[in-house]
């Protein structure tokens, strides 16, 4: 799809998760001079290692989208630094500013208990909470904790609620009702929804990532 729009791929490789050190592959990405980097990262250290290597190579892509890591709130900021975080993007189904009353209540209670700001709240918090919510609804509906009944119920085309929005599992167990957004760290240490650009809650995207600031 991107190729049809004129985007040229200059580097595409698959790395094993247990790779010893990301410096060598990150240096190769930097040498490619790619304007957009899409990294299939699995955690904060992976994306932080690439960011560190890019900074060492004096290379800042215009857009840097990581599959995981930037959605980890304060844990991400503390590792990469607030200045370096600006412009970092991540796809996800939830963020602390999600305009759902139950989500807003969760974020308020979390900040009240653990401190920080809404942007510090890790997406894992909402995901774990949602699992609990779904289980609670399944247990109430089936009248117990029988695994077979719960599995049948969850695959029974029912729509459940969670702080991440509606939950409806398809035959593969995927939540077909979930929303998909792209978020970005922006000036002021805030984590904003930026895509889809016309969706409610989306803020203007920072189209050119600022230079590294360490």
């Amino acid at each position, binding site marked *: 799809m991107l190729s049809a729009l004129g985007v040229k791929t200059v580097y595409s490789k698959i*790395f094993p998760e247990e790779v010893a*050190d990301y410096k*060598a592959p990150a240096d190769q990405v930097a*040498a490619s001079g790619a304007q957009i980097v899409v990294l299939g990262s699995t955690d904060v250290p992976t994306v932080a290692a690439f960011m560190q290597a890019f900074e060492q190579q004096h290379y800042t892509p215009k857009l840097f989208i990581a599959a995981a890591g930037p959605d980890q709130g304060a844990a991400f900021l503390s*590792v990469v630094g607030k200045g370096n975080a600006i412009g970092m993007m991540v796809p996800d189904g939830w963020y602390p500013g999600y305009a759902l009353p139950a989500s807003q209540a969760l974020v308020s209670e979390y900040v009240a208990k653990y401190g920080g700001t809404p942007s510090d709240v890790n997406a894992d918090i909402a995901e774990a909470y949602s699992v609990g919510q779904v289980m609670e609804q399944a247990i109430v509906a089936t009248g117990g904790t029988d695994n077979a009944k719960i599995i049948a119920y969850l695959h029974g085309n029912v729509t459940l609620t969670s702080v991440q929005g509606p939950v409806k599992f398809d035959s593969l167990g995927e939540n077909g009702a979930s929303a998909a957004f792209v978020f970005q760290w922006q000036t002021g240490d805030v984590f904003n929804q930026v895509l889809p650009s016309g969706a409610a809650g989306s803020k203007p995207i920072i189209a050119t990532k600022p230079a590294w600031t360490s």
Partner: protein
Amino acid sequence: MAREIYQAIVDGILIGGVYALMAVGLTLIFGVLDIINIAQGILVVLGAYLSYGLAARLHIDLFVGLLITVPAMFVLGVAIQWSFIRPLRGRERTSMTLLVSYAIALIIEGILYEIAGPDVRNLNAWYVTSSIRIFGFYLAYIYLFGFVMAVVLVLALYVLLYRTRFGRSVRATMQDETAARLVGIDTNRVAALTFGIGVAVTAAGGMMFGATNGGFNPNSGYDLISRLLAIIILGGLGSIGGALAASVFMLTLQSLVDIWQPQWATAVFYAALVLVLLIRPTGFFGRAPVRAQ
């Protein structure tokens, strides 16, 4: 393509220095005590946390902080050897030390979780993200400093082992513990001090690991141990210089594979180990009668 190859070689050499700092302690301990210290991975992580504590709480520079963390880890190493390793006797000693060192790893990991929590930390300083341009390549100061530190450390350990009275005691114990005891060497003291030194140098490896790995938490040690074991086996068990040579060889090879087929880089890492051992079963510098050199 030539530039990519040069870059990969430079990266491999510099990253190899980091791994040498983590592996040297492991091979030294094996050389004297004949045990594989499974806790080496978590000791690396502990070294990273100690550096983090000094930098974050007391604003002590990472390299200056080694003046505190290295002695602290030495004391810890001596205490571990005295409390857990020394009491093990008999034919089951080697296998028991595997279990005991694994238990030590779990204890340290638990303590780190209790104190620091599961959040990812990293070490930062101006030289962690800065680099110098040489022959068209940006070389990060942290790797340059780390590589120099690895070479200096290996030389210092060489001098300690080959130019001091204590070193003669260590080598005698390596060759034949019973004979060493018969000529008056306090082998218990040698074992305790050597374990302490092995753990102490790991503090330097831990600092480098924390500054170059993108982040660490108490769980980060498990990925390390298999690689460190592969490195010290390839270098020759007990060989200090072999650990440095094997680290550079393995990481350079991996960086080169990264250029074409990165998904095979990890497999090649271990395939190279098997291949070298088929040709030279004692590794690069390993010799059965005298392992340390």
